[in-house]
């Protein structure tokens, strides 16, 4: 069953600015969908339209079988976790959790039961009588999640919930959010600009750019079959190398060098996409000769920043590094080469 159906949604502001330009996505029951994209791509606007905090200019949002376009946020059966937690500073943790239930006329006994249940689940039981200002960032984040859980909503909406936490806590909370969402079985939309969060959390990723969907797919699909140069450069770290090249008769030519590829349908200028981690420094075979520049040792992997003709290329590998300023031979497997249209940037 489908929990949320977003159909041809547009968002135009009174000043004429268009934040969302026709987006359609479905969120299935229990599914965690991540909206990812750079700032200004419309991902937060999408989420806020689902929440009812922004009006929908055009299109339809259907939650659990009913169109919610004209419903108030409180009538939509959603729960949202905000970037800066948005806890009520004057209420204790317990009251923060209970507030939404109380306003819906839930009996006190049931409120107490739900609050205690959520507190236990999130291990915030000992903080229930404290004020938010007495909690650490991670604890506040838990309270914010608790506030969403007690509502037992049709869908969770996460608006970059981890971006205010430090790196270590972020990794830990990321895992917890995933476990929690799985065990509750509630559908969720998670908005982030962090591709690592997107890759690790998502059942499906929606990559947004400039108010439009670039690609929808499972994390691995988005990584291995990027639909456009935008997706290719956005998902994966370090980003995919995108090289200007020319294709003709099954041979590809870059900066005066050429070799055979399995791509014969198209001829002319293209963009060749190569993931840094799929390139190897080889001692022989067919490949590109590059000029080795700066080397970066990250511990687990080592990055070689090289130049191929007048274009930059990054290679990630874990074996021995070549000498700086030397020449190296770079090889890759045929199915690791991605071809994109030079003008539209779409995958060929």
């Amino acid at each position, binding site marked *: 069953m489908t929990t949320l159906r977003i159909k041809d949604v547009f968002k135009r502001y009174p000043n004429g600015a268009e934040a969302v330009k026709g987006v359609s996505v479905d969120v299935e029951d229990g599914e965690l969908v991540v909206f990812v994209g750079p700032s200004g791509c419309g991902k937060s606007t999408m989420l806020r339209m689902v*929440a*009812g*905090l922004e009006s929908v200019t055009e299109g339809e949002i259907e939650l659990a079988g009913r169109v919610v376009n004209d419903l*108030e*946020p*409180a*009538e*939509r059966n*959603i*729960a*949202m976790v*905000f*970037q*800066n*937690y*948005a*806890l*009520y*500073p*004057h209420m204790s943790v317990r009251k923060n959790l209970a*507030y*939404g239930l109380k*306003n819906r006329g839930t009996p006190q006994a049931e409120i107490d039961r739900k609050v205690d249940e959520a507190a236990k689940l999130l291990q915030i039981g000992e903080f229930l009588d404290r*004020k938010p*200002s007495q909690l650490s960032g991670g604890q506040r984040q838990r309270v914010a999640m608790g*506030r969403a859980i007690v*509502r037992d909503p049709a869908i969770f909406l996460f608006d970059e919930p981890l971006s205010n936490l430090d790196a270590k806590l972020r990794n830990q909370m990321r895992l917890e959010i995933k476990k929690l969402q799985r065990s509750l079985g509630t559908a969720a939309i998670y908005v982030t600009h962090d591709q690592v969060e997107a890759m690790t959390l998502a059942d499906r990723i929606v990559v947004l750019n400039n108010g439009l969907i670039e690609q929808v797919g499972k994390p691995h699909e988005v990584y291995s079959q990027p639909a456009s140069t935008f997706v290719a450069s956005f998902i994966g770290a370090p980003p995919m190398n995108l090289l200007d090249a020319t294709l003709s008769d099954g041979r590809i030519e870059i900066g005066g060098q050429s070799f055979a590829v399995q791509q014969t349908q198209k001829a002319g200028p293209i963009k060749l996409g190569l993931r840094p981690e799929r390139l190897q420094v080889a001692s022989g075979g067919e490949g590109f000769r590059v000029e080795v520049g700066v080397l970066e040792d990250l511990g687990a992997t080592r990055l070689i920043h090289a130049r191929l003709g007048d274009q930059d290329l990054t290679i990630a590998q874990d074996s021995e590094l070549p000498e700086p300023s030397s020449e190296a031979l770079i090889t890759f497997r045929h199915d690791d080469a991605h071809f994109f249209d030079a003008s539209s940037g779409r995958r060929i």
Partner: protein
Amino acid sequence: MEKAQFQSRWMPYLLLAPQMVIIAIFFIWPAAEAIRASFFLEDPFFGNSTFVGLQNYTDALSASDYKRTAWFTVVFTVLVSLLSLALGMMLAVSADRVLRGQSTYKTLLMWVYAIAPPVAGLIGVMLFDQHIGPLVDFAAMFGWHLQIGVDYWDTGFAMIVVSTWKQVPYCFIFFLSGLQSIPTSVKEASAIDCQSETRRFWTITFPLLAPTTFFLLILNITYAMFETFGTIDQIVKDQPGNSPVTLVYKVFRDGFRGNDIGGSSAQSVILMIFVLLLTIVQFRLIERRIHYT
């Protein structure tokens, strides 16, 4: 915080000196003088004074017009403080919600604050004038014949209206900035948690404005008791005797119009003690219950 040390140990005192001098000249010296004078009976013509002990105090406190003035001061202060708070908050909440032309509304609501109290008093006198005052005509439409300067309560009513009008913009400015300091996401979270806007106001906005409200309450009480002097003076100075005044105005009138320096000093010492107690009570009792973010 880093601790800075001055080269010379006299430097801090030198830097404090201007403020200390101002406090000494304009507060400590007159206050000491008032306390001294309150124990003497001053001769208005030759400057001779006779020590009378606490007689000025007992006279002041037992006089029936003192009790009447004190009672009016309480009513006046409570009404002016609370009405300014309520109206200021109401206007701020409305202005905060306006999307178009917000700055115009804000300016229109704030400019009254720029008027000096005597000028406000003058405008008030004009608005309540027996012959040309539009407010008198307005009240007459409901069968209420306002007689400023003649009827005790009508005059009091005019004073409260004019004083409140003067203080509302001040409250408005503070409430508006208080409202705008509530994070948008908290307002949005409450919109998701609570459907009723009225309920949201009383459970989220109002408690978060509490520090502002408390601050303004103290300022309003001080304003109503002391700073309304100019306004009151404009309304009552040319009128016959039966007009309500506040204790501060009575101090002025008894001292400088009635030439009873001793009695007037005793009254101002009583006021001083009252303000001291009021301050202690306010900070001890009320501040404890207020959440500061």
